[in-house]
């Protein structure tokens, strides 16, 4: 055993290699390396909070790359993607000593086979243990948060992956999405539930999603309640510890009257997934549907799609399966590259379930 001094490039290469990636191809600016670092860190820290996970990764990168707001934002988006994709599960803490509130847990090792033969790898093993061996890992491609085994890389991929203890997730389950409904029906359902709640009194640290603001600038829609605010809002409320809770709130002149914490659906649904879909319904109901921008150069066989609002996990999973996530483009929260032949069907699905409007990129 011993100590070897390294320069920054060599140290970065050692760390990237330890993550199972090619140091010739990526460094710690690449989202693939950051996603791998998040996964590895989660394997030791879960159950944990998003904040603590990101803080640990940021601390570990000091000295190997620039630490700035962009890094934190990228990590935040990547954690959201890892949750939606299934590498991480966001659940209420179920052991007292882990604290209260939502915690990140490791998603179970699994795989989903695309019709093309490509297989998506999902989940994280504890203790930094890779999902597959180094030998098979050499075939795995990384695109942002997605790990995929290309078609034809191995014979009988389902059998091989099963031998690694990965369970197959069916396309049916992967595609599981809420049933279609009219936006006003969805909004009314939540309003009815909210009406049944008792008076909430004042609520600490309440922020609301302003339905009047530009739907294509998601972050700019969040603010504190104002005196003129009355009616039904998607909101978040602070807790003493942990991330704020998602909720819907009935305001009267800026003061909360009733409050309903999300999620209200049974099972492992996340509050944010319900909130985002509900806001999409609210926006559509008031005639200002959320915007999806598409960029299809003439004759190109791939298109780029920019989402300006966050996607519920069931929708992101669907896009992860058919499209390739990109580093988000200007004005977008999420960007995907999708084969043009798939574009119409997938956009139709988003329009059906999220009532979104599609427009070409300006």
């Amino acid at each position, binding site marked *: 055993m*011993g*100590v*070897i001094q390294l320069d920054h490039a060599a140290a970065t290469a050692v760390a990237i290699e*330890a993550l199972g990636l090619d140091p010739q191809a990526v460094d710690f600016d690449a989202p693939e390396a950051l996603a791998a*670092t998040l996964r590895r860190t989660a394997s030791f820290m879960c159950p944990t909070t998003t904040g603590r996970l990101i803080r640990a990764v940021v601390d570990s990168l000091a000295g190997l790359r620039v630490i700035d707001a962009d890094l934190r934002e990228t990590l935040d988006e990547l954690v959201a993607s890892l949750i939606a994709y299934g590498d991480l599960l966001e659940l209420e803490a179920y052991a007292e000593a882990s604290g209260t509130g939502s915690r990140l847990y490791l998603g*179970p090792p699994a795989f989903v086979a695309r019709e093309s033969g490509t297989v998506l790898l999902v989940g994280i093993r504890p203790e*930094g243990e890779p999902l597959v061996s180094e030998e098979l890992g050499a075939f795995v491609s990384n695109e942002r948060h997605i790990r995929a085994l290309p078609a034809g890389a191995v014979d009988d991929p389902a*059998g091989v992956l099963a031998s690694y203890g990965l369970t197959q997730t069916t396309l049916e389950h992967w595609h599981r999405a809420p049933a279609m409904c009219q936006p006003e029906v969805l909004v009314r359902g939540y309003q009815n539930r909210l009406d049944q709640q008792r008076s909430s009194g004042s609520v600490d640290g309440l922020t609301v999603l302003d339905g009047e603001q530009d739907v294509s600038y998601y972050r700019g829609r969040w603010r504190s309640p104002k005196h003129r605010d009355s009616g039904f809002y998607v909101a978040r409320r602070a807790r003493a510890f942990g991330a704020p809770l998602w909720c819907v709130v009935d305001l009267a002149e800026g003061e909360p009257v009733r409050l309903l914490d999300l999620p209200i659906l049974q099972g492992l649904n996340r509050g944010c997934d319900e909130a985002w879909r509900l806001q999409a319904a609210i926006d559509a109901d008031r005639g200002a549907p959320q915007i999806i921008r598409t960029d299809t150069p003439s004759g190109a066989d791939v298109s780029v799609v920019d989402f300006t609002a966050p996607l519920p996990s069931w929708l992101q999973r669907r896009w992860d399966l058919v499209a390739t996530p990109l580093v988000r483009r200007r004005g977008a929260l999420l960007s995907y590259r999708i084969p043009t032949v798939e574009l119409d069907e997938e956009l139709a699905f988003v329009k059906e379930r999220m009532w979104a409007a599609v427009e070409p990129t300006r």
Partner: protein
Amino acid sequence: MTSGTAGADPDPLRGFHVELDEHFRALGESVRSNALRPVFALEHGLSEQRRAELRHAVATRVRLGSIPKDAWLPVVAFAAEIGYGYVGDEYWDSFEAAAPGWHRHFDRGQLRTWFEKFASEYGGARPGGAWAEWFTIIAWPITHAVLPTDLQVHLARLLYDYRHHLTAGMLAAPDLLGESLAMRASDSSSSRFRKFTENTTLLGQVAAALLLGEGTESAFLLPATLDRVVEDLARERQALRWLTEAKARAKSVRLRGLSRSTGPRGSTMGRVESAGAPVDRLSDPRCYVRKGDDGWSAIIELPDLSVLATRFQMMRPELQRRRCVVAGAAGAPLARGRVLLPGQRLRLDRWPNYSEALLKIENAPAAANELLADYCRLSAGSLWLFRITEPGLGVEVRGRAVRAGHEYLVCSRHELETAADWVHRADMTTSGLRAYSLVIPDVIGPETSAALGELGLGVATDITFEPVGLVPALWDGEGAAEWVIGEEPLISITTTKALRACFLSIDGSSPEPIDLLAHSPQHQALVCLTDLGSGTHELHATLVPLDEDEPVIEGRLDVTIRNPRDRATSGSYRSAFFMLSSPAVPSLSEIWDDRASIEIFGPAGIPVRPKVTLRNSDSVLVSHHLPRTELPVLAGEWRRVFETFQRQHEVRQRFDDADSMTIDIAHDDLGCISLRAEREFTPLRWIIGRNRNVPYARLINNTAYEEVTLHIQDFATPGTTQQCTINGDRVEYPAGGLISATAGRSSAAGIIPPQVDTLDDLRRSTREHPRVHVNAREPSEVIRLCRLSQQWMTATVPGDIIARQRQVAVLREVADRLSALVGGQSWARAEIDATRTRPLSARRLAAAVGNQPDQRALAEVLERRAADLAALSVDKRVADFASLCSQTFRWLRVELDRDWVSEFLLRLASDPGGLLAWCGNDPTEAVGLVLQAPVLLRAARLVVLVTADLTAETDVATPYRGWTWE
């Protein structure tokens, strides 16, 4: 060897003998120079076709009842083949099936004689390890089978799990490899595999052959034999993958070992080699503080105590099979084996005293608890420093040094006095500690430094160590970090001082200069720590400032390298759900008989449907989903849903043929978890079955003794034994009862259900009340009755409801007789009177507890509180009972631990069969106390009987409802 000369001889067996003699003699000669390399009978080199011919030749001669004196060698090879292929635990049955007539014509000892001859003539392997002492004959053919097929998957998994620990030294020394692997194997679900690994020499040789053998001449096994093992192993894809990865690792370790001698790996920028052995702190717990609504609470995170179990073999059974008390943690002790689950976080309601061990294994030998106290302890002293790493969470800084601008929480046993305005009292919910919040000023001047010194804290030196690149498994933010073995920690070392020189050393090696100036303006150096073994290593830095007047700066980082955790298929607490069993590695019988508990944890309210499968070798006998239940599934709920499985007719019929059980839980979002339990591999075992509705008991005898002493006890007269004989390999006994077999030092008992052909038979059987004969009121008689109860309780019970009911009736009768023996005739009458009424008359019992004023007072309070006690969990009931009896204990001057005595009394009163296993130590002193002060047992019986009367649960495995002991 593909052709032979057997065909030329009229007796093919002689031909085989000649052929094998020639082969083994040559093999023995070729390996003679390698003292570590024995010859195995499986290395006969026969092709598949020739093996079939050999089997036929041996079977023919066995049937005739004669093996020529000069033709014993084929039988040895044949026996090794049986050992290689048989599954389950019935070696002799497999042998008899392949060579009918063996039992009739031959003595078991003859086989051992031939194997001993093989060992001395050809340098053959000799069985070793503890199991060879118990299985004195079959240990020979099984050893010579090298690696029986059904154990191959277990060895592949073990090699895979252990791959990161492999060293070049181990690969060159199979004994060392075997010893290391054996220590890790004791968690295997297969009892046969655990026993196989006790022969560490064989284990090491087989493992080395598998790891290093492919493509090269193995030093430890004939290539053809090795190929055969690998080929068989490859039939299971996962096993082949495990082996492939373990081999890849072994190859790289070996290459690295070879290259090491040619110079340091990697960079030429400088290398510091370690000198000393690592300091071991792997088994110390981690400490945190977490803020809640009422203030801060101390949290401990359990360490990986398997390192203790590995180092001290005597610790493993104690940790696996006993409960563990965590000092200061509220609630029941940790369930059996639960302490071996590292990473569990427990909130301390009370901070342990100076003299108190943090962990104490219940009823374990003193030596085990002393070891645990020595190796698992909180940081010494009366003050603990926690760095606040995020709002509401602090991590202990063991070095007790603070940095400017950081926030801390100090917890102290004593009041701290300070005038510093950056120290504020904080609320603490853990009693025994006072908490203070510290916000260290941005600049630590002399005044601040002095104030810190008065508090018992230091100031961190002007050198910072930080892990970079790979987030470590644990990092206290200051001076201690933890990685998993196989990882190479990357560390950043920084200082703001202008330096003349910087030196690094690891584990006390001589300091080597590193360049802290060249690579960044912040005076940062990045170092990679390579090839660190398991344990805690000290990375020490010495900085020499440019200014000669400034003192040298010293800094230290504790780098802990530990084993990976959470390999279990039953899930991990880091995942969305997981399954725990108590004891940690339960056997099939323990789960079936409710002597092991199962719990499933996960997000509350999520529905799950466990699937239970019984298997015999690879065949599924029966598989059913249990009723849907919701997470978390605690022990009581598990028992309820599992009973629905046990009650199914098909399950009861097939259970006795099963040699393993798996519990699988699959959830679309949470994943899959699984727990496997196998039958214990014992020298003697009963299988209970039915032949045309006639119950029988079949004996599996793997001992060296063909003569077995058999006794039977009727259900009507437990404790009264009569000899019986075995007909072939089974005993039929229509009346039913407990049958026990003894052969040498081994014994086993099973319960034969009564034969029930008609409704009258059923009525008669259920009405018949067992009667136990009781002798004089002596401690030895109490212990005899406990042993009798234990014998009935631990006997193999078939999946037959009547057998279970009769067993419970016997257990209850023994408990009643024991109560009458200790409590006296008046008390016995009171029990009879009280239980005649519905509901049971607690008043009648209370009236008989005792006549002294203090005894009456105790009886009154117990009568008043009995219903409340019945509603509590067993652990809480014990605690409350101890509290209610405290006055009586004082009057009686009870010197034993009062909580312990309370549990002893309630166990004796409710479950005497389980008492002796729980006690561990000699119970004579406690029994003496009970006989001297019968009021204690009467009080305990009052609580037991009232609780049983008020409890609705339907478990039939315990004599009294509501008294399922952990």
